[in-house]
């Protein structure tokens, strides 16, 4: 993702269609899997694909208007678009909210990650511990821990999503982590 922000900056000042298409493809090859993961973790599959396409169109249409210069700012920007489209969907279809990802699916993804990065026995041990932490958490806490550590949202992004302030989210996640640790110990 190191070159992502360079691609975005170049896209902003590019006038020619062919070059814009090339840059857009390079940018979206990097961010589409993240957006897909976010959406498919929140909505039932039949609707998730449609919402993902709406998010991609909105993001592509606004790409030239993004004024930030850092990767975190870009991530925050495109996830805000994604959350807005997701909330539009939930206003129409509340029942489409998805249950947390089951452990066998999580383990399936962990196994798939080994193709890119081999895993040590210590890694396996840590991952089992992390799954126990999630399993031991109450649903609300599991949601916070999942969004922060697994999806990768920072406190500010979660605060925006939940209509809370930054410190409130930071303390909630800290408390959830403490609680999960005490239950697993």
């Amino acid at each position, binding site marked *: 993702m190191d070159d992502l922000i360079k691609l975005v900056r170049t896209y902003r000042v590019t006038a020619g269609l062919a070059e814009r298409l090339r840059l857009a493809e390079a940018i979206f090859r990097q961010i589409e899997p*993240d957006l897909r993961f976010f959406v498919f973790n929140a909505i039932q599959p039949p609707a998730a694909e449609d919402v993902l396409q709406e998010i*991609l169109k909105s993001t*592509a249409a606004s790409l030239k208007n993004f004024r930030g210069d850092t990767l975190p700012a870009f991530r925050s920007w495109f996830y805000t678009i994604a959350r807005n489209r997701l909330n539009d969907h939930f206003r129409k279809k509340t029942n489409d909210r998805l249950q947390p990802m089951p452990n066998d699916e999580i383990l399936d993804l962990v196994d798939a990650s080994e193709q890119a*990065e081999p895993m040590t026995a210590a890694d396996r041990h*840590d991952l089992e*511990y992390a799954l126990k932490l999630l399993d031991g958490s109450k649903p609300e806490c599991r949601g916070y821990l999942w969004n922060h550590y*697994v999806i990768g949202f920072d406190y500010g992004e979660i605060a925006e999503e939940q209509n809370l302030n930054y410190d409130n989210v930071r303390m909630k996640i800290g408390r959830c*982590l*403490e609680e999960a640790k005490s239950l697993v110990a």
Partner: protein
Amino acid sequence: MPNQNTDAEAALQKLGHRVRLGWAKKHSISDKSLESVKNTVREQWEQEQTASRASKPTPSPEKDRGPKPPEPEP
């Protein structure tokens, strides 16, 4: 004061990294997504071209007319 949650945090961060990595391995960008993006970029580019053409001042009819043809000889 050292963070008491460091081990738990590190384990969860490792899980997040692995899950996202595994997801990206299993779900590279789909053709449908790529087409959506490219169509949007094309449409936006065409709108910009149209807007740019519309904003250029249209030549005044006086200038367009060019020099007056000479009067016919009596």
